[in-house]
């Protein structure tokens, strides 16, 4: 082993010693999400009418390799439609423990209703709480279930542990505040 090699190695160490650390003091400081990050799903709505994009076709469930999605469709009341068209998802559930965040559901969706968003703070206690229903998934719901539970308890807004420098266009209408 030569001295040169030692010096070179030491040089690398010294360079990193003086550069800015890459670690983030999460959760005190938010994490910056990369544009292609795949986090918790969002069920989006049509921006104009506010109707759900999901038509309850179950293709996401069919595409899901982990069998994490359960959809039960129903017929729209023409007077009071939930979604555009004839059918909507009466029940839409994703088991977040089973989900592997592969994004196949998003690929399979013919209407762009289910989109993988940016949230990742899903830790919770009970198995049943990981089954996210429509009210947890629709874009009006900000934060994960435990976060919203916490917010309701404290009376403060949901605190997200990340920031989004770039929102994917598919996540139309989703606000991460």
């Amino acid at each position, binding site marked *: 082993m030569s001295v040169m090699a030692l010096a070179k190695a030491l040089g690398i160490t010294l360079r990193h010693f003086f550069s800015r650390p890459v670690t983030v003091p999460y959760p005190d400081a938010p994490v910056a999400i990369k544009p292609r990050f795949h986090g918790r799903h969002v069920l989006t709505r049509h921006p104009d009418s506010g109707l759900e994009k999901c*038509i*309850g*076709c*179950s*293709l996401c*469930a*069919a595409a899901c390799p982990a069998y994490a999605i359960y959809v*039960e*469709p*129903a*017929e729209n009341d023409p007077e009071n439609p939930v979604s555009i*068209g*004839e*059918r909507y998802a009466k029940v839409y559930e994703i088991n977040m423990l089973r989900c592997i965040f592969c994004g196949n559901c998003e690929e399979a969706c*013919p*209407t762009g209703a289910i989109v993988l968003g940016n949230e990742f703070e899903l830790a919770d206690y009970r198995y049943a709480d990981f089954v996210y229903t429509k009210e947890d998934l629709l874009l009006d719901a900000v934060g994960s279930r435990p976060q919203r539970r916490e917010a309701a308890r404290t009376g403060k807004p949901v605190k997200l542990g990340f920031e989004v420098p770039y929102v994917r266009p598919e996540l139309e209408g989703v606000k991460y505040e």
Partner: protein
Amino acid sequence: MPKLRINDREIEVPEGTSVLDAIFHAGYDVPYFCSERHLSPIGACRMCLVKVGAPRKGKDGDWIRDEEGNPRIFWFPKLMAACTTRATEGMVVDTLADEVKKAQAGMVEFHLENHPLDCPTCDKGGACELQDRSYEYGLFEKYYTQTQNGLKTVLYSRFAFTKRHADKHHKLSEFVVLDRERCIHCKRCVRYFEEIPGEEVLDFIERGNHTFIGSEEVPLPAGFSGNITDICPVGALLDLTARFRARNWEFEKTPTVDMNDAFGAAIWVDSRSGRIERIRAREHPETNEIWIADAARFGHGWTVRDRVTAPLIRKDGELVPASLAEAEAYLRERLARVRGEEVGLLLAADGTLEEGYAFAEAARALKADHFGFENATRFPAANLPAARFEELLSAEFALVIGDPAEEMPNLYLRLQEFLKGITPAPRYYHGTPIADLRLEERMPRRKERLAVFAAYPTRLHRFAGIAGVYPPGSAGPLVEALSAILNGKRPEPVPGVPEAELRRVAERFLAAGSRAIVVGAEVLEAPEAAQAVADLARSKGALVFAMPPAAGARGLEAVGLWNPRGPGWEEPGARFLFAFGATPPAEVLASARLRVLALSHLDPQARAHADLVLPAKTFYEKRGYTVNAEGRLLELRPAPTAPMGSMDGLEALAFWLRAMGKKPPAAHYREARERLHERYRLPLDLPEEGFFWRPKLRLAARTGKDEGELFLQPTMWKERMLRDDRVRTALGAPRLRVHPATAKKLGLAQGARVEVATRYGRRDATVALDPSLAEGALLLPAYGRGTGRRVPYRLLVPAGGEA
């Protein structure tokens, strides 16, 4: 038997085979839309175009040969539609040539031209022939890719114009919805109605590119309309009861048997998340082919609501939920010192053979004289010889007494085949012929082959050369008179039917080389008449088709649940009553000291009388054998929809017997089946087509006579189905049909609302005067119970109404 070559394979097929079937028989595939089993091939969709060549014969009568001495193949100048081309000796078929592929891809493109791409919302998605064929035979790579912004995208069609728009939600009835945009004009539904039930209620309207399916007969007559949803190759005709319930791949599909009538039609039960969502016909070539009745298909809505999910015990006059342990303790306490003779054991009409066996054995062991099954007729159907449904097609003349369309709907469809002179389809490697060239559009129905008599004009009357309507109660005298004529004796007069008519029937009956007699519940309720039929069958060699009102009748009778002497389902007598699957009449319940019912659903009678209710399975959820009207053993398989803890008849009976301190004859279907195997040599596992079990029986007929004026007219719909709103809406209020003269006598006016009280309960009805009935007739639909009987009745006029 022509020999021909399909691509590289030499095959031999029966005379009259279509090239399409020959291709499938050889193990090759060819796309098609307009052909369907049991419907005439029409060659309309042009999907099955293939290259066909055949040798020709020269003037000397020998094949024209090539240099090597082989028959020379002359290729047809155009591609031929395989479905309408007959396979002939020496024919050569090429299904893999480039021009064939090109043509088929072209047709796929044409089919997709105006077809909406709304597969995600279409209930047919995932089970759609157009989807499948498009992927298999559309040439996407070659024709339909385009490059846009550097990305290659797949096009389904190069058609760049606006698609044809049409009515998307056209309700044809409470059960069937039509989406005209999705229609690909295969004409299966139009042909179905004309060729199978013989009702021309659907047709194409307009022509050319504007052609659409339409009907002036909306709602479609409830009877056989549901089959069009099965055969529609796309999502144009859909089952409304299953609309948007789930996608096709999500259903749990259970192959089982319909137990609403004794035909034993094969069905698929599609369930999801513990609910029955849809029933479809399952192919059984020898019984129902690919058809089922509307009641079997759409009458399942009752199963999913208000199930009995836990034992209910009467406390302070109310039925309250209890645990199974509590129920057991309750029963033990009350059955502790009960003698066997005091016990009554009753089984529902749709009981399985295993259940029937267990009930019969238990009754024998207990020496109980009160046992039986629901809707048992006075004359046991098992005493009549049974013929296979297919044998009907070999008959030359059929005499029908009753209403097959309502009593055993699938038999009505078989009778339609018989009228057209169709023989059973040949069998191929791939099953039933898809393009059976023996079938043609608008085949004439040979009316002279059929004589029909019933207490009212049935659907079959229109197709019969000799047709009559007699006053209710005359079925017995009619059969006896006919039997007298055939035996060369003087007949007694039959009301409503002139003797000359009967003589004409007898003449045709004797002139025919082979004959069939179809008898309904009304004849089975008249023991002498039914015996006359049995004698006729023996002496004159006629096939008999009996239509008992209990689905499992033949089997239940044969395994000993037949009680000619003691009281059965209808008669009071037992002090400790156990009934499975249905509620016995009020007087039977009232006469008992303890009433234990195992039910899937509560009804008012049970609510009022039952002391203990156990949760029961419906026939969709049971496993077991049943014997259909032709003596064929068929297997019920359970759909996964029964609530936790619900019991089948064997389990419930064991529960009762154990409370008595007795050992049940069989605790489980497998055990019961082993006993049946030991005693009757029944197989432990059934082959797919079933197993014939037709023991020659001479059971004593039950005595008794109908006393009453109100005839309970059979319908294919059952009491339990009326719990479903959709069914109730479709059927409307029951009509009390009265002959005008009789109505005048009774002071009944057309359209009056009345309440009719019989021993089977009360029913609202609307009075309908019907001059086509015989005088004296008074008819009320019987949704299952008392079918074909005449009963005493009371008419109650609701407040404010006027009869």
